[in-house]
Each structure stands twice: as C-alpha cells, then as structure tokens.
C-alpha cells in the first residue's frame, strides 16, 4: 500500500516532464500508475492488509494504513475511474493547453491522496489526506486561473470543504481522546457512547456532508463546474465527493445508533435529493444539470449508507458503484459535446443524436442506469434501496416510511432529469434541421468515446452480473446489523420494490412531459440559489467585520499605538499587583553612596533631555546617562559590562554625530505641545509602575538563584574564569548567536537604507580616488594617506599623527581583549568594539579614503565570515555528536610556545568579534563615507 502511495507521488512529480515530452499523450503512461495499483487491489480483494509505520507517536499520528472490504470498494472507484479519466484527458485536452503538466501532476496526486484517504486507519492521517484532496481540488477547479469565475469557484469549494474539514478534525480529536485510540478500526470496534461522542459524531458528519455536497453545504459543487470536464467527472462524480460517503459508511457500523446520527443524515440526505433533483430539471446547462443530479444522488447514497442496516448498506454501496459508472460516463459525454459543438446549452442543441449516434447511445445507456432501468446496475441498486427501506428493521416505523416516501419522490425527479438530459441534448425536439452549433460540430475521436462507453457498458455488465457484484459488496454490508438475508439480483420477482420502481418510472416520465406546465406555475426563483448568496453575504460580512476591526485598532498614529501599549504596561501589572498576593517590602537605601551620586547625574540628564530641542545636546545628554550606567556597572562588580558600555556609548555617540550633521540642529516637534500633559502623566505612571513592581518583584525572590552554580560550571565545564564571557560564548551561546544575527541584519539594513541600490562593495581606498581630488603634493611623506584628500584648511596634522601612533596600540589592545576575555574582562564584544573604535579614529582623522586604507575588505565579507565562524562552531559540535554549541578544550603542544590550551568557544567568540567589526565598518561606510560622498551631498 505504501508502494502505491509512493508510486503516485513519484508519478505526480514526473508528470510535468512527461507532458512536456509526450504532449497530451503523456497522460497515457500516467494512467498506468492507478491502473497497476488497481491490479494490486483486485489481487488482494477480500483480504485485510495493514501497514503500520511510526511517524509522530507523541500525537498518536502514525502511518497506519488498513485495506479492508470497504476500502477495497472505494479503491475500485478511485483507481479504476482515475485511470480511465487520465486516458480521457489524453484526448480531451490539446497539447498546447496552458499548465497541462501541472494539471496532470495534480490529477495523479489526487488519485494517490484519495487512495490514502480510503485506506488510512489512523484518523489524523485520514484528515491529512482529506485536506490534501481539498487542496488539490482547489487547484484543479481553478485550472483556468485567468478567469475570475474559475477562481471564485475554486475558493468557494476550498472554503466550504475546509470549514467542514476543520469541524471534522475537532470531532476526530474528541473521538480519539475519549476512546483512547486514533485508529478507526479500534474506535469503531469500541464504539464509545456519551454526550461528548454525540458532539464528535455531529462534527464528523459536518465534515463528511460538506465534502459530499449535501444541503446546506451543497452549493460549491455546481459552482465547481467551472473546472475542466475530466475534473468534474473524477472529483465531482467518482472520487472526492464520495469521500464523505465513505466516511459515513465507515462510521455507520459503530455510530449509526447515536442520537444525532439519523436525524442529521436522513433529513439532510432526503432534502438534498429533492431540492437538487428539482433544480436539475430547471437548468439549461448540461454540466449543471449533472452537477445538481450529483448532489441529488449523493443525498440518496448518504441516506442509504447512513441508515445503518445490512440491506441499506448493500444498496448504498451498489448505488455508489453505479453512480460512479453512470455519472462519470455522463460527465465525459458532456465534455465531448462541449468539445465538438462548442456549447453545453440544451437550447442550442438539436438533432445531435443524428450526428453523433454513438455518443447518444452511450449517454442513453448511462442515463438509463441513472433512472434505474432494468437491467442496469442503477436498477439493481434502486431495487435494493427500496427493499431495504420498505422492510427496514433499524429505523423506527415512521422514520422508515418517511424516508421511503422521500426516496421515491427523489427517484421520480431523477427519472425526469435523466429523460431531460438525453432528450434535450440529443433529440430533434421538433426542429426541422440541426441547430447551427450541431451543424458546425466535428466528430469525436474513438479513444475519447471509448472511455465513457466503457463506463456505461460497465454499468450494464454489472447489472447483469448482479450476483457477482453482490459477492463483492456483501462483506462490508455484513458488518452492519439487521437481517442479513438480502442479496443483489437482477430479478427479485414481483413485489413492493418493483411496483414502486414502475411507479417511479411512469411518474418521472409524466413529470418530464408536464415540466413546462409545472414550472410556469411557480415563481422563477430557484429554491437553492440562496445558499450561494448566503455564502457571499457571509464573506462580505466577514470583510466588513475585519474592516471595522482594522479601522478601530489601526488608527495609523504611531504615538497612539505606543500609548496603547504603554498604558497596558502601566495598568495590567498594577491590577495584578493590587489583587494578587504580595510579599512584604524590605528596602535598603543603596549598595554604595556612589550610586546616589551617579544616579542623580543620570536622572538630571534624562530630565534635561525632555526639554532639549537641540539634537546634538540631546545626544550628549543621553551619552551622560549611558556613561553613568557604565559607572554603576563598574561599582556593582560588573567590569565586562562597564567596559562594553563605555565602548558602545562612544561608538553610538560617533554614529549619532555622523547622521546628525545631515539633519537640522533642532528637532521638529510641531504638535508635541498639545499633548504634553497626558504624555507626562503616562510617562510618570509607567515609571512609577516599573519602580513599584520592581520593588515587589525583588522582594518576592526567595529561592537561591541559579547563578550561584554558574561560576563553578564556567570554570569546570567551560574552562574559563570570566563567568560572563563563558555565559555568552558557551552556556547561553544560543542567545549570542541570535544576537550577532541581529547585528548582521542591522548592519545590512543600515547599508541598504543609505545606499538604496548596490549596497555591496569595498570602501574606496586612496588609489580609487580621482587625482583632481588630491590636495597635498603626492611625493611628500604623509602620516595618513587618506588625509591627502582633505582640504588643507580642514586637515589636522596633530590628529593624524596621534592616530598613526595610536591605531596599532588600539588593535593590539583589541586582540588582547579578545584572547584574554575567557579569563579576564574582555571577550569578542569588547575586542570587536575596540577595533571598531580604532577604525572610527582612522576615519575621523583621515577622511573617507582613510577607512579603506585602514581595512581594505568588504564589510559584507567580514560579517559573513563572522557568521560562518559562529554558526560553524555550532554545526561542527553537532556533527561531532555533541549538543549544538557545546565547547571542548584542545590541548596542543607547539614547537616554540609550548603547551596551549584552546577552548573551542574561542572560535565562536572570533565570529562575534568579526561581526562587531563588520557592523562598525558597515555603519562607517554607510553613515560616514557614503554621506560624505558628492552623491548624497548634492541633493540634500
């Protein structure tokens, strides 16, 4: 069974290539796949095959396949009709049809998914295949995707069946959790009961009935006739719509006697049968006629398989077979008519039977089976159905009679629209000559005709060989209660069923004759058109709702949105604090008096910022708070933090100044005055909340913190004395990996915003400059080569000299920080930032060409190399079988240096170092060099 699924998947993958090479004939080799699979099904008929492969045991979702009697019947339909439809496709389409390869792939994949659906024993697996057919049906119905009609129909089918599918999923989960197993075979054998199960059954039925297009979820099926005819013949006659029938048939042995089952299945089934049957008598499009006929027939079959007795199940499966044969055949006939004459409108067809007698014969044979005429399979099935309902021993007496009456009335309609199909499509209808469409028609080819002919003859053969069909279907029927005595046969003798059949045929014929008179009596509104409009109204309503919600929540004002977030931040924790349990509050004034002194400066700077309009002054003030924090870190016992904070603060200051030189000195705060007071209130509220909640939070800490164990872990396992650094590169290296990725993205973002296009490239060097830019004489000895391009008045020789002397020192310091970081303050971040500051110095002293002189490498390459080092360490440790990002210590003896202890986390830290350097270089290149360039200066 697994091989069949895999074969279909492979065939689907190969289909586009196959169609490209062979054109439309490529469908023929593809048809071999379902045909060969059908051979397997026939070879294993009557046996039960199981495949169990573990997949996601935690969710009870495993590849459990089970091939039993019911699955065999379904496979016969799915694979048999599937193979024939593919053959039909080989002549229906022309080779130059757009997207034909993809279409073929979808058809084959659909056959595979249907096979999986009917053989899946695990209910979650069933759901997966179920939705796979839904998605494929969406794609197939929307094959003519350039058309709005086609897209709308596809979307409608998708939405309706997916909504049902989701309901079904909930039902599956309830059923699986209550019964303790997700295997269909277990669940049906156990057949648990209870109100929860009743809900599950209703949800499952919603899924099944929406898939099988039962009223009131039927409207997608006529709409889906926008699909190419082979799709209609396969999905909407033989396969997909039968998935719902299959599910009902599958569940019936276990759940047919739950309270909600019969009311749902019987009432909706009969309603579909009658309403759609009536509608089929009104439409003029042959395909629509068949579509409504299908809804009607599906209602009939659902009633039969849902009754839950042996006889009805036998009748239901027989009708299912018969329906696949005659409806598939009829759809193909309509496809041929459409192809040959260019129309499907019965008002435009006359004398078609004379011009295409073979086609008329096929259609008549199939339609006779649909009407239930002896000796076709439709007759056998209908006899069995009438017998089962008339002598029912499962339903109550009243329900059985009501159902019987409904079925008889529905059958009358079926007979009428069967006659209408054949007569109105093929007859001369009293006209003297063929209609223009028919006169222009071309004769259909033999291969195209052979497929519907085969299906129609199949209905005849199966009818004659009713006893043989009986032997195929009995095993499943025996799983249901009720008298087990009924057998399918062509002739049961004269009795109530036969009398009813004759009555149905006569009344149906009369109905057709009187159709014009009857339809004139009633208003021209169809009974079922409203479901489609209800669907539209529901969609429009949801559009309106989402529009209103968007308008309400997304006002477009950033301050308003932020205020909403901040108000929530202030209010929600306060409420929790007010109503929740609180610990007592113990306070200490400070850790050291230094905190008070620095804190006062910080707060004063922050307050000054709120009234400062000058950008540069604001930046300096924010720098004061930053350096202040650095001091707090330093006295707190966090040298790494203090170091990093000082370096970052300096760099940030430079970056700010680089950008601010291009912006006006004062900020534009128009409109800010109006909302000063509410802003201040909110600001104080948030600040107070943070302080108060922080006070309570710190008092609530009672357990020993995890950090007590960290120094030992860092030293013993991470081989480093600097706990913070070991945390960054080893213990919590995942965080750092994420962080450096963010830095990389930020660097790329900065460059993209400034350069807009062609963001990659090296920083220009002195050699790249045009000679006329050169200010200083070339032969003179110079301290910084880039400085030669700075106008003499702006050049600062002292700075250049200092830079020339300081740069190597800073780089050595940077390397020291990097290497020492594992055991002393420093590390990749501090080292990288120091190197970055050295670059900043070179740039500030030597101008735009000096940066390229200092580091003639593309920033992107440095960033990329850094990420390779960091991520590479992670991957290598994984490849070596260790957990991701775990570090090891290598001890090597080198000739001169002696024993060296190398922690692999150093490579990770090297990545961090490179990314920080790359970030600084990219920022300088963008916000520094590029902003200096004439391009940015000219149109400022």
């Amino acid at each position, binding site marked *: 069974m697994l091989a069949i699924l895999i074969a279909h998947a492979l065939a689907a993958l190969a289909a586009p290539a196959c169609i490209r090479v062979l054109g439309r004939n490529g469908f023929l080799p593809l048809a071999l796949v379902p045909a060969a699979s059908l051979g397997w099904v026939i070879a294993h008929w009557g046996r039960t095959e199981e495949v169990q492969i573990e997949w996601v045991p935690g969710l009870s979702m495993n590849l459990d396949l089970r091939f039993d009697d019911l699955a065999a019947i379904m496979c016969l339909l799915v694979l048999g009709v599937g193979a024939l439809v593919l053959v039909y496709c080989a002549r229906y389409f022309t080779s130059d049809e757009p997207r034909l390869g993809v279409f073929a792939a979808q058809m084959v994949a659909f056959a595979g998914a249907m096979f999986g659906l009917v053989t899946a024993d695990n209910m979650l697996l069933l759901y997966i295949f179920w939705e796979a057919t839904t998605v494929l049906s969406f794609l197939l119905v929307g094959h003519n995707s*350039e058309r709005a009609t086609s897209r709308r129909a596809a979307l409608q089918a998708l939405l309706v069946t997916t909504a049902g599918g989701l309901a079904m999923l909930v039902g599956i989960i309830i059923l699986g959790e209550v019964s303790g197993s997700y295997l269909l075979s277990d669940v049906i054998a156990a057949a648990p009961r209870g109100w929860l199960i009743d809900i599950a059954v209703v949800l499952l039925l919603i899924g099944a009935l929406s898939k099988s297009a039962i009223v009131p979820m039927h409207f997608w099926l006529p709409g889906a006739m926008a699909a190419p005819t082979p799709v209609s013949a396969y999905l909407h006659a033989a396969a997909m719509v039968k998935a719902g029938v299959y599910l009902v048939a599958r569940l019936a042995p276990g759940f047919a006697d739950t309270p909600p089952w019969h009311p749902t299945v019987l009432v909706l089934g009969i309603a579909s049968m009658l309403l759609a049957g009536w509608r089929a008598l009104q439409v003029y499009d042959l395909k629509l006629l068949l579509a409504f006929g299908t809804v009607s027939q599906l209602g009939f079959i659902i009633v039969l398989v849902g009754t839950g007795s042996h006889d009805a199940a036998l009748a239901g499966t027989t009708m299912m077979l018969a329906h696949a044969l005659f409806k598939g055949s009829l759809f193909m006939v309509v496809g041929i008519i459409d192809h040959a004459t260019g129309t499907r409108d019965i*008002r435009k067809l006359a004398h078609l039977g004379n011009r295409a007698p073979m086609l008329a014969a096929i259609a008549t044979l199939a339609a006779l089976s649909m009407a239930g005429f002896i000796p076709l399979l439709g007759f056998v099935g209908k006899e069995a159905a009438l017998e089962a309902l008339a002598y029912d021993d499962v339903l109550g007496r009243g329900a059985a009679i009501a159902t019987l009456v409904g079925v008889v009335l529905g059958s009358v309609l079926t007979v009428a629209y069967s006659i209408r199909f054949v007569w109105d499509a093929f007859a001369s209808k009293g006209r003297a000559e063929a209609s223009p469409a028919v006169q222009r028609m071309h004769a259909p080819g033999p291969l195209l005709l052979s497929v519907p002919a085969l299906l129609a003859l199949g209905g005849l053969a199966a009818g004659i060989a009713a006893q043989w069909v009986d032997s195929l279907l009995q095993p499943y029927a025996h799983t249901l209660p009720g008298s087990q005595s009924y057998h399918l046969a062509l002739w049961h003798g004269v009795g109530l069923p036969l009398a009813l059949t004759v009555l149905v045929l006569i009344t149906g014929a009369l109905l057709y004759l009187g159709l014009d008179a009857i339809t004139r009596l009633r208003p021209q509104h169809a009974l079922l058109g409203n479901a489609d409009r209800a669907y539209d109204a529901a969609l429009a309503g949801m559009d309106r709702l989402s529009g209103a919600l968007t308008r309400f929540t997304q006002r477009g004002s950033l301050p308003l949105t932020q205020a909403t977030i901040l108000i929530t931040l202030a209010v929600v924790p306060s409420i929790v604090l007010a109503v929740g349990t609180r610990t007592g509050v113990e306070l200490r*004034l400070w850790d050291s008096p230094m905190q008070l002194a620095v804190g006062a400066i910080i707060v004063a700077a*922050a307050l000054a910022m709120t009234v400062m309009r000058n950008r540069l002054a604001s930046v300096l003030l924010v720098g004061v*708070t930053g350096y202040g924090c650095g001091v707090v870190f330093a006295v707190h016992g*966090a040298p790494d933090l203090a170091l990093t904070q000082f370096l970052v603060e300096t760099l940030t200051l430079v970056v700010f100044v680089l950008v601010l030189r291009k912006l006006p000195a004062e900020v534009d705060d128009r409109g800010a005055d109006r909302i000063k007071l509410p802003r201040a209130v909110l600001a104080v509220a948030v600040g107070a909340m943070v302080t108060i909640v922080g006070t309570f939070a710190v*008092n609530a800490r009672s357990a020993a*913190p995890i950090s007590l164990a960290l120094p030992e872990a860092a030293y013993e396992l991470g081989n480093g004395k600097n*706990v*913070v650094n070991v945390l960054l590169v080893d213990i919590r290296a995942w965080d750092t990996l994420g962080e450096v990725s963010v830095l990389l993205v930020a660097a790329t973002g900065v460059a993209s915003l400034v350069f807009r296009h062609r963001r990659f490239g090296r920083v220009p060097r002195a050699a790249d400059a045009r000679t006329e830019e050169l200010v200083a004489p070339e032969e003179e000895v110079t301290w910084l080569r880039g400085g030669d391009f700075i106008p003499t008045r702006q050049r600062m020789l002292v700075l250049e000299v200092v830079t020339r002397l300081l740069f190597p020192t800073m780089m050595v310091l940077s390397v020291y920080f990097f290497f020492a970081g594992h055991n002393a303050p420093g590390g990749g971040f501090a080292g990288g930032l120091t190197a970055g500051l050295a670059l900043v110095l070179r740039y500030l002293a030597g101008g735009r060409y000096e940066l390229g002189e200092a580091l003639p490498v593309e920033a992107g390459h440095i960033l990329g190399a850094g990420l390779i080092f960091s991520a590479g360490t992670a991957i290598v440790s994984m490849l070596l079988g260790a957990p991701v990002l775990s570090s090891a210590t290598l001890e090597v003896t080198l000739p001169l240096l002696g024993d060296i202890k190398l922690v692999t986390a150093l490579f990770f830290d090297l990545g961090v170092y490179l990314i920080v350097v790359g970030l600084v270089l990219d920022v300088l290149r963008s916000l520094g060099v590029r902003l200096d360039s004439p391009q940015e200066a000219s149109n400022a």
Partner: protein
Amino acid sequence: MTANVVLLAVIGGLVSCGVYLILERSITRMLLGLILFGNGVNLLILTMAGGDGSPAIVGRTSAGHDTMADPLAQAMVLTAIVITMGLSAFVLALGYRSFRLTTQDRVEDDPEDVKVASRRSPADAPDHDRTDDPATGDPTPFGDAFDAHGNPIPLEELVNLEDIECYDELHTGEIRRVEAGEER
C-alpha cells in the same frame, strides 16, 4: 532580597523620561527615548539580580565583598547593550532616509491605515480589481475576459461565454425562462 531604593528611583526616572520622549513623532527623539528606556531596563535587570559584589571572574575579589555579583544578569545586559547599538544605527539610518525623502524625520500617520479608514465601498479593498463592480465590489463578467495566457481580451472574443452565463444563473438563482429550442 531587599530592594535598592536609589537604583529603583533612578530606573523610574529613566523610564519616565524615556516614555515621554517615545510618545513624540520625531524619529530622533523617539530613538533617544528608547535608549533612555533601555538604560533604565538594563539597570533594572541588574538590580533585580541582587546587590553588588566581586567581579564575576573566578578567583578575583574586591574589597568589602565576599560574594560575586550575579553573572547571569550581566550576560543579559551585555547582550542588550550591544543590540541597542545596532538598533540605534539602524533607526538613525531610517531617520536619515526619511529626512532625505520628506525633509523631516517625523513619523506621520500611516497612509495605509488612513486608506483603510477612508474606504468607502468594498471595491476599494485590495482583493478587488478593476474588473469588479466599482460600487459594490461584486464580480462582473469582465473578470473572465482574459485569454489563456492572462492577457485581457474584449468580452465578445471570449470563447466560453456560456460558462459565465450559467455561473450568473447559479449565483442569482434566477433562471431565464426561454422557450425550448429558441436560439439566441
């Protein structure tokens, strides 16, 4: 654990000033506000982890401390500091670009949100195109007037005009009673 009053007050001050600035429309001021807020939160993380102590380096002690300051909080704050630098650079570049385009570094109301708010008919929604009815947004036959390659064609050239008609019948639920055999 006890709460450090001075530090918490400083944190409250930083957060308040940060929030005050964040609620402006100038990108520079918002960024500065965010940095202030971030500095406050960094201090908050630090003080939440406990009091001061020796440096978080095994084997090093400082005078007056017999315990190590919490290294976990320090690692978190270190990450935050560096991220803030990257973020600042990015927002500054954003502000610069905004200034180059609009000559001001202000965040005006989001035009897309304004557009949603001023939508008058369903046809204005982005999932409708020009083939839909401009007043109601309902699909019209013109939505089908495309050839197999997606190029628009006149409605008259459409091969399967019938498909649209039968769809229309299906949708409205109205069926034209035309005498059988009548040719249009």
